[in-house]
């Protein structure tokens, strides 16, 4: 039987999406003596170690572990896909940022923060990218949907969980702002 490490390594490369320990356990479903979860977890640690400093790294994101190229290699790898990288519009970024930091949140609450309406289309697009989902409906007239971010969003931005988001910073223009009100 091949080494546990080679199987896990190959599976992570071949999956095309992040795999968590639950997924990895399933690889061994037909084995007489399947490896324990602890062994799998240790192997993942070893693999992370093995790939440190290489062109490809093993990282943990929200949905599990995935191999990805090292961020500092982007200038060269861009030549593989020479087409211009789309930049997300500010509306999109602001909307997803507000949802990420303030979830669960309704659309009208997002609009209140932005001071301008958020189009139905924008919300639908975020839902379709699988970046946000409807968590529940608020028990107020109209039962507005409460939105939250998904694992897909975290995966895309290379985050393990919401705590990994950059800290919110209060804007300070002049230093002498009296910190009177809290948000």
């Amino acid at each position, binding site marked *: 039987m091949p080494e546990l490490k080679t199987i896990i390594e190959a599976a992570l490369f071949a999956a095309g999406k992040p795999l968590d320990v639950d997924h990895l356990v399933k690889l061994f479903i037909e084995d007489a003596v399947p490896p324990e979860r602890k062994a799998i977890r240790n192997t993942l640690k070893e693999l992370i170690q093995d790939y440190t400093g290489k062109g490809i790294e093993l990282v943990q994101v929200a949905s599990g572990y995935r191999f990805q190229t090292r961020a500092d290699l982007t200038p060269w790898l861009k030549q593989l896909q020479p087409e211009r990288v789309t930049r997300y519009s500010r509306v999109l970024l*602001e909307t997803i940022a507000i949802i990420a930091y303030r979830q669960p949140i309704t659309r009208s609450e997002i609009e209140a923060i932005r001071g301008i309406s958020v189009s139905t289309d924008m919300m639908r697009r975020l839902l379709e990218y699988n970046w946000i989902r409807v968590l529940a409906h608020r028990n107020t007239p109209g039962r507005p949907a409460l939105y939250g971010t998904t694992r897909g969003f975290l995966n895309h931005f290379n985050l393990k969980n919401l705590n990994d988001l950059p800290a919110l910073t209060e804007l300070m223009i002049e230093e002498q702002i009296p910190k009177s009100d809290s948000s």
Partner: protein
Amino acid sequence: MDIAIPEGKNAVVQGILFEAWPTDLYVPPDALQIFLEGFEGPLDLLLYLIQNQNFDITNIPISTITTQYLKYIELIEDLHLDLAAEYLVMAATLVEIKSRSLLPISEDIKEDDPHAKLVQQLREYAKYKQAAQDLDALPRLERDLFTGLVEHPDIPRQIVPPEVSLDELLEVMQDVMRRATLFTSHQVIKEPLSVRERMSAVLEQLKQLQQIDFINLFVIEEGRAGVVVTLLAILELTKESLIKIVQPQAFAVIQVVSLETKNA
């Protein structure tokens, strides 16, 4: 700007500010349009006006800012740009704050102080505007990080195309169109779809042969309409510099050459 701004009431501050800072800002008209389209709403515009002059969010010189804000709104209207209603609401709010600030402050009015509310709103918005920028700066898939898919040659991958109906496809395209009206030029809308299909077909033929006699691209059996479609496709491809029509010498056979260099 290290003029000490007394905390609190704008009415007191205003006079000083008017002397200390320029009240007018000049933006060249061309730049203005692009500039205005760049704003994500009245709060964004207001924040810009405040930050641009290093004003303190909590001590906005309301009169100055109101004047400037109204000037922009006028400009936007002059340029006949679509102006969201929220911009006008904000203008009204600013005017209200300004007029209130001229009145002596009575305690019961302070309860529901639109100025304090606006400051609060601006601070909140500024926080998320920054958060959006921070989010954009994170390394992300397909821009900074790439994943791959390593094949396992011994396991034939089952490729099952999703079941999609034509209706679904068309509905989606309708949405795309609605979003992309600006992008779509008139000439595209008028262009019969068959031309685009033919463009693909011509490219496909050239992919195999590199060079084809012009005449051979036409299928006579298709009749007049077919010939026109092919011709339009060839012209469009020429316009997009994907192919070149050449005639090596007078009376020689006209040829269509792929402009794609080899070893693609």
